[in-house]
């Protein structure tokens, strides 16, 4: 299996000029991952964990030693499958999407770098390489978000993402340090083996470690209060949005918590914090998503919201479910992003949904895939989102650590999800074309093919649910999470989701021009809709308008003026200090000598008073 990782690294690092090479590198990586998967499948479940392949003993100093090694277990292989699989599809897609860009090869090499970093992150066998991967991912995303370097907003967004990530990195580094202090090792295997023996639940050390790791996880996964970089990161090219903000990077936080599940199970307080923050982020992001007009920003907020679900899931101890949702989300969110990208590509760069419309006929393939993505996102029965999200929502109530508060957050978010996702859907694809100057066209096959693949996966992946949970269970202590059946709760969720969709439709219907079109389209539904019209208005007045206002308020006050302000101020102060320091460097010998003497006197004085 040593070959596995080596061939893998070599392949992905290859930065040839041609997209083909880049794709095949990722494709190869995917095959390797797949091979590892089959290898693992052949083993007994209990034997599947903890295969550490030491490639090279790297640093040895005292009791500390560090090896270049990879960890092969169900969790890492599972993540690797998603990363390389979705990554491959996105690579193929970007061949089409970035075709006209003069810096095509640079883009491809960044993408490869990103996949490589992400693989390092998930395959790391100790906290050290986890952090290396963590930082590399941050770097790669910085490069990718700022790819359009002539766009000032892109550069700013990249910088913001970088700063946020660095905050997370600091948390991680300190966490690693505390771990090393307490356990004398950074190896997962050692740490996780020792942790339950050495510490009682909720002991200070464990709480500190889990909290510090959480800082890293929150920063990467855009959870409150470290979330502001994610929507801005939409300045990058769309495949980047799909790759980073759907399938891979943002899920690193969830992966981290799942990976350290042993530690987190010892820290119920932290778990509670995770679930709370996850739930709040879910609803917070969903409300903001309601008022956005940029197609990609809406999807970005929806990503945040879905990440909130995942955190909620792992926070209530349903690690397997969190990972399962991570997978389905990777499929359908990548699908949504890529479809959105296809729309943007077709509209020659237009991202405002108010200027779109009537694309259904022109871009049928995109339309279908977007529809599937949206349905999956809202958890329409039998799509993949249904299985994972429904399970989370029900667990939020029924799981040992769940309660009605979490459930409430989750279920309200489900309703909002229905609303905002179908709002953009209706705006973009229904009705008439609004902008007479635009000449939308269907995207080339190299772009639609990935859409098809992802759409297919989004539809069927739900069925894999049980297998996934079982496959991952050895990592999480050997038990498959119990499946809760509760028809009532499920019904409530679905109803709320439907209400959301209908509300979106209602909003859309208020637009006079479209009424006729929709009437023709959805004649059977129309009657029901019509009768519910006043309810919808009430709903709109009491629910939608206030939430909209709150969303706007949150965005403006909390994000723009609060968090961003602080970040900017810090950067500014550092620069000022630097300038102040250099003023002293006046070029005069006398000043330099004076400085030396001053230093000498200060040291003397220090010794006298010390």
């Amino acid at each position: 299996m040593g070959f596995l990782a080596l061939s893998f690294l070599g392949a992905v690092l290859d930065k040839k000029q041609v997209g083909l090479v880049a794709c095949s590198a990722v494709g190869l990586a995917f095959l390797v991952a797949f091979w590892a998967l089959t290898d693992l499948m052949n083993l007994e479940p209990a034997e599947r964990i903890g295969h550490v392949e030491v490639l090279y003993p790297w640093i040895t100093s005292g009791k500390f030693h560090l090896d270049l090694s990879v960890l092969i277990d169900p969790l890492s292989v599972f993540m690797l499958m998603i990363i390389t699989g979705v990554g491959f599809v996105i690579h193929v897609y970007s061949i089409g999407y970035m075709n006209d860009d003069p810096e095509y090869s640079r883009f491809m090499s960044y993408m490869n770098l990103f996949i490589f970093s992400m693989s390092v992150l998930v395959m790391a066998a100790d906290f050290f390489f986890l952090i290396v991967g963590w930082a590399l991912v941050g770097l790669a995303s910085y490069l990718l978000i700022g790819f359009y370097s002539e766009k000032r907003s892109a550069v700013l967004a990249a910088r913001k993402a970088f700063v946020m990530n660095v905050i997370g990195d600091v948390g991680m580094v300190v966490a690693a340090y505390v771990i090393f202090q307490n356990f004398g090792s950074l190896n997962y295997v050692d740490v996780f083996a020792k942790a339950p023996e050495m510490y009682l639940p909720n002991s200070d050390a464990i709480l500190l470690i889990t909290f510090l790791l959480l800082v890293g996880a929150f920063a990467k996964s855009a959870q409150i209060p470290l979330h502001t970089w994610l929507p801005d990161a939409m300045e990058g090219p769309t495949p980047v949005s799909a790759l980073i903000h759907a399938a891979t990077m943002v899920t690193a936080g969830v992966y981290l918590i799942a990976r350290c599940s042993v530690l987190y199970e010892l820290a119920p307080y932290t778990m509670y914090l995770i679930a709370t923050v996850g739930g709040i982020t879910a609803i917070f992001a969903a409300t903001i998503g309601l008022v956005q007009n940029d197609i990609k920003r809406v999807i970005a907020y929806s990503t945040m919201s879905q990440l909130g679900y995942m955190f909620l899931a792992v926070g209530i101890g349903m690690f397997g479910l969190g990972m399962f949702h991570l997978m389905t989300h990777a499929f359908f969110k990548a699908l949504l992003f890529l479809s959105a990208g296809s729309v943007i590509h077709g509209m020659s760069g237009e991202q405002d949904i108010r200027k779109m419309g009537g694309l259904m006929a022109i871009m049928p393939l995109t339309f279908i895939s977007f529809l599937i993505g949206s349905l999956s996102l809202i958890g329409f029965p039998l799509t993949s989102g249904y299985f994972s999200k429904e399970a989370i929502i029900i667990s939020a109530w029924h799981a040992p650590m769940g309660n009605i508060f979490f459930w409430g957050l989750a279920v309200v978010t489900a309703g909002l999800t229905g609303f905002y996702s179908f709002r953009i859907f209706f705006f973009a694809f229904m009705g008439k074309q609004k902008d007479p100057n635009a000449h939308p066209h269907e995207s080339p096959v190299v772009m639609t093919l990935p859409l098809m693949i992802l759409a297919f996966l989004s539809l069927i992946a739900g069925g894999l649910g049980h297998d996934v949970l079982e496959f991952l269970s050895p990592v999480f202590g050997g038990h498959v999470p119990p499946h809760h059946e509760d028809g009532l709760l499920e019904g409530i969720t679905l109803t709320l989701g439907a209400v959301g969709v209908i509300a979106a439709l209602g909003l859309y219907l208020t637009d006079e021009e479209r009424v006729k079109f929709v009437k023709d389209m959805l004649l059977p539904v129309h009657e029901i809709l019509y009768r519910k019209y006043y309810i919808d208005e009430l709903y709109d007045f009491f629910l939608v308008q206030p939430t909209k206002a709150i969303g706007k308020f949150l965005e403006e006050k909390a994000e723009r003026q609060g968090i961003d302000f602080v970040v900017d101020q810090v950067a500014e102060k550092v620069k000022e200090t630097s300038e102040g320091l250099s003023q002293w460097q006046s070029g005069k010998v006398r000043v330099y000598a004076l400085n030396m003497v001053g230093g000498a006197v200060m040291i003397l004085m220090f010794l006298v008073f010390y």
Partner: protein
Amino acid sequence: MAPLSHYLVLSGILFTIGVMGVLVRRNAIVVFMSIEIMLNAVNISLIAFDRYLGQHDGQIFSFMVMAVAAAEVSVGLAIVIAMFRNKPTINLDEFNLMKW
């Protein structure tokens, strides 16, 4: 025989005067002479210690200081001359092409 501290105080005073010279003067050559005062001040300390310890190490040290002083003077004055060719001044405050 004067006590050791007398010599050390003399050495300290001369050293400080040398430091002061470096700090207040702008004439490169005078600054340089001030540095020579500092080196000489150190020699007093070395030799006074030697006398009180009854050994010769400090005297050897002070030879080396003289050798070093000679070497520094020759190089330093060469630098001053080379510089003077390009810019006929030895006012140190006028040498601030590079700063910040």
